Each structure stands twice: as C-alpha cells, then as structure tokens.
C-alpha cells in the first residue's frame, strides 16, 4: 500500500516520540519489577517473591513515616483547601481592586520561589521560634505544608468559580435568597468538584514534598520522602523498591481520581 501523504507527518518524529515514552516508563517499570525480586539484587532477576513487601510492612520505621506522611498530607491539604476556597471566593468575579496583584503574588509565591529557598527560609524562622518558645511539635510542618499547598488547591477552585454559571445565583437572589442562602444552596454545591480537585492536588503535593520537609522537620519527624532520601545514600535493597512501588500506586490512584473528578464537569 502506498503511503498517503499526510500533512501532519514529519519523518522520524514518531520514532523519537515512542523513544521518549519508553525512556519515561522503562526506569519506573524496572523499579516496580525488581520490588518483586526474590534475591537482594535490583538488577538480576531471581524469581518472584513478596518478601520485600513483607519486610517493608514489618519495618516499624517505614510504618511510622508513612502514617506521618499521610496524616500531614490530610491535615495540610484540608486546611489549604478551606483557605484556598475562601481566597478564591475573594479574588474571582470581583471588579479589580487595589492590592489584587499583591494577593495573587502572595498566593502564587510558593510556585515561583525555588523550593530550596523556601526551605532554608523556613529553617531560619523555625530555628528562631524553637529557641524562643521551645516548641518542637508538628505545627511547623503543618504550617509549611499548608502554605505550600494553597496555590495548588487554589487553581482548580478558582477555575471552577470562573466558569460557573452566574445566572443561577442571580435567580436565587431574585427569589429573595440571602447571600448566605445563595452561597449554601447554589454556589457551594456547584463548587464541590473544584474543591475536591483542589484537595486532591494539595494532598499529592504535600505527600511528594521532600525539600521543604527536609529543612523544617525536627528530629524524629521524618516523612516517607525524607526517610527515602536518607536511605538512598546507603546501599539500598529491593525493600526500597517495594516502598516506592506502594507510594507510586497511591499517587496513581489519586491522579486517576483527580482526572475523573475534573473531566466530569459539564
């Protein structure tokens, strides 16, 4: 069959694209495959086994850091979602006002500033407060993660608000609904997909954050990523592959959910 002339075909592009996909996935696939390896090696296959998953589950430290990570992500992204929802309500669908640019800049700062800079900035402040007050609890990490999650939670909520049909709210107002009633029964239900998406985005971001946690944490406050970062310096066993695989699976579930929630808008 003669190849048809296609305007969108550029020679070699398909091959490079497929190569890119292979390069993107091969290391991850190998990582996952060797988490099921029978022997100690991460590059020589010795048969299927779940022993590294058992090892990971039996490891008290891994359990501790995982629970801390999930707890922190849950608390920080919940707080960030509430704050971001309020901020989105404040900054969308209003005429331009003085200080609007400053608010945008403040909200988006964690996205612009390199994480390592935010990290050492927090380290300086936290070190100072620790000396002054003696408090060394999880509060610092919660605050740092919340601030970092706000811009991520803010984006989908704001997007949802901007595309929302305003006539429904106007109808509510015409029917003598108060501001509070209109918000409670019209705006909020319509906003839910955005809020859920914002929460999930914040959750993933908090779960993945390693640099900020590394600088802010006190002794014994390792999260799963900082624990892994510490372990990578030594000779690692497939137990690390098993932990990474579980972590990947969790992220994948959340991302899939995120896509389902955001694509259902109509």
């Amino acid at each position, binding site marked *: 069959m003669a190849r048809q002339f296609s305007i969108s075909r550029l020679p070699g592009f398909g091959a*490079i*694209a497929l190569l890119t996909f292979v*390069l993107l996935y091969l290391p991850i696939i190998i990582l996952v495959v060797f988490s099921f390896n029978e022997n100690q090696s*991460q590059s020589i296959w010795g048969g299927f086994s779940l022993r590294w998953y058992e090892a990971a589950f039996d490891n008290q430290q891994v359990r501790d850091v995982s629970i801390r990570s999930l707890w922190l992500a849950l608390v920080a992204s919940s707080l960030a979602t509430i704050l971001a929802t309020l901020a989105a309500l*404040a900054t969308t669908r209003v005429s331009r006002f003085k200080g609007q640019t400053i608010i945008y800049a403040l909200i988006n*700062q964690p996205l612009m500033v390199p994480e390592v800079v935010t990290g050492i*900035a927090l380290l300086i402040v936290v070190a100072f407060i620790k000396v002054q007050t003696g408090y060394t609890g999880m509060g610092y990490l919660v605050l740092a993660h919340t601030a970092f999650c706000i811009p991520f939670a803010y984006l989908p909520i704001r997007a949802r608000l901007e595309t929302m049909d305003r006539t429904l709210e106007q109808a509510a107002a015409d029917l003598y609904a108060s501001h509070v009633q209109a918000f409670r029964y019209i705006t909020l239900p319509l906003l839910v997909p955005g809020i859920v998406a914002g929460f999930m985005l914040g959750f993933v971001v908090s779960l993945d954050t390693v640099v900020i946690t590394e600088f802010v944490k006190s002794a014994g406050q390792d999260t799963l990523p900082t624990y892994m970062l510490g372990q990578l310096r030594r000779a690692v066993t497939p137990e690390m592959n098993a932990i990474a695989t579980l972590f990947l699976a969790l992220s994948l579930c959340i991302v899939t959910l995120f896509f389902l929630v955001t694509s259902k808008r109509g």
Partner: protein
Amino acid sequence: MASDPNQTEERHGWKWLLATPALIVLVLAASGPLMIVVLYSFLSPGNMGGVAWEFSTDAWFRVFMRRDIFDPENVTVNQAHLAVLWRSVWLSAQTTVICAVLGFPTAWFIATRPPGQRTVWLFLITIPFWTNLLIRTFAIQEMLRNNGTINTALMWMGVINEPIPMMFTDFAVLLGMAYVFMPLMVLPLYAAMDKMDFRLVEAGYDLYASRIAVLRHVILPLVKPGFIAGSILVFIPSIGAYVTPRVLGGGQKMMLGNLIALQFGQGRNWPLGAALAMVLLIITVTALVLYLRAVNRQEDKRDG
C-alpha cells in the same frame, strides 16, 4: 459577560476579607521567611550556625570572592562557588535543550493522533508528572549504579567487562533532570499545537514548501509560545534543583541548591547560605521576567 456593575461594586467591599486567613498563612510561612532570608544575608555568621546580629556584607562578598586565610589582603575569585553557579546554569540550559529536542516530536506525535487516542497519550505524559520526583530520581539511580540495570545489561551482553561509573557525574545529573522535567516541556508544547490551525501547514505544502521549510517557517513560529513556556517550566525547577543533584551528583557534583543547603549544615555559614539563596532567587526571577516579556511581545505581535 455583562453583569450588574452595582452588584459587583457592592461585592468587593467586604469580599477580599475572605482571603485574609490564606494570606496570613502565606505571610507566616512563605513571604515573611523570605524577607528574613534577605535580612540574614546581611548579618555575620554565628559560631555554631545561626547568625550574630552585626551588619556585614561579607556573605555577599563571599558568594563570588574569597580572602586568603593567612593573607587577608589577597583577594581572589571564589572558584568553587563560581564552578557550582556555572554548573547549575549550564546543566539547566542543557536540560532545557534535551527536553525540547525530545519533547517537540513527542508533543507533535500526541497532537496528531486521532482525538480519542490523544487523551490516552496525554495521560501517559501526565502520570510521571504527578508521581514523586524522588521516586523517579531513585529509578534513574537504579539504572546508573555500578551494579545497576545499564551496567548489568552491558556486561551480560559482553559489551564491557567492568561497569562504567556513571553515578556522581554531571552526566547523571543531566540525565536525571531531563528525565524528571520532560513532562513540563511536552505539556505546554502540546497545548500550543492543539490550538494550531493545521490548514496553515496544508497551505504551506500547497505552495510547494518542503517538509523542512514547513517545519521552519510555519510550524515552529506557531508553536513558539509553547516552546517559551516549556523552556521556562523546565529551566526554573532545574536551576533550583536539590533532590536530583543530591542523589545523582553526590557531594562532588553539587548544584546551587546543594551549596545553599550545605551552608545550613556542615558549612555553618547561614548568612552565606542566605546570600546564595538570594542569588538563586534572582536568577529565577530574571528568567520569569524574560519569559513574561517574551509573552507580551508575542501578544503585541498578534494584536498589531
């Protein structure tokens, strides 16, 4: 959309107050600390880390210069710092180029699939973007180690007898960064191609342009905004990278982020760390400003 102007006016009077809780958190845990970094960069280092509350420009001096310990009059350029600074900029630029060279055909490939397939390919690009950066760096480490996948495979095939040392080199850092930041290039490129009018490409061919001529004179100018956005999205996290150079570059092949962190650890020179952090921030902001300018110029051209 036309809305009652009176209503909007009435609204924003109190509405912005809703943003205050978020702003308080952000000031406490983002902007405020950043201001303190500026302050700390003008103080003297304390004995055991921390700072002494004396004004000093020594930290800024030390970013670029160094004094001989025995002969304070002897001032030379700080080679070690400049080497790290140069490596950071150079590796980030290379990362951006690699991502562009591989990302452009990939985005093109996705954009030219039938619409139903496109979502799947796009999802495949997005997944790595959402999976933990540390885990992806770990995956690269597993490939590059002396007894890692690549060396084991090459030795098994008999190509080499001894493992090629690849870890803790600039190459490893470069490969790792290109790997982790690739989706950030493909996504904006795809967005630009998705908006592209393919009839223009067709018109080019109708006028007897070769494939290369169409690529150069039609496609590339049209997807330029995507290139600019992708480059900035790759360059900024690259220049500020900490995890990838730490894992793959080790202590020898530091980047700016690692040098900053070092001052707050073993270095025990917080003001120097703060000044270096400011240097990183200035580079980042400069890149962003150049980006915004380029975007504005593009828009002016379109309007004019």
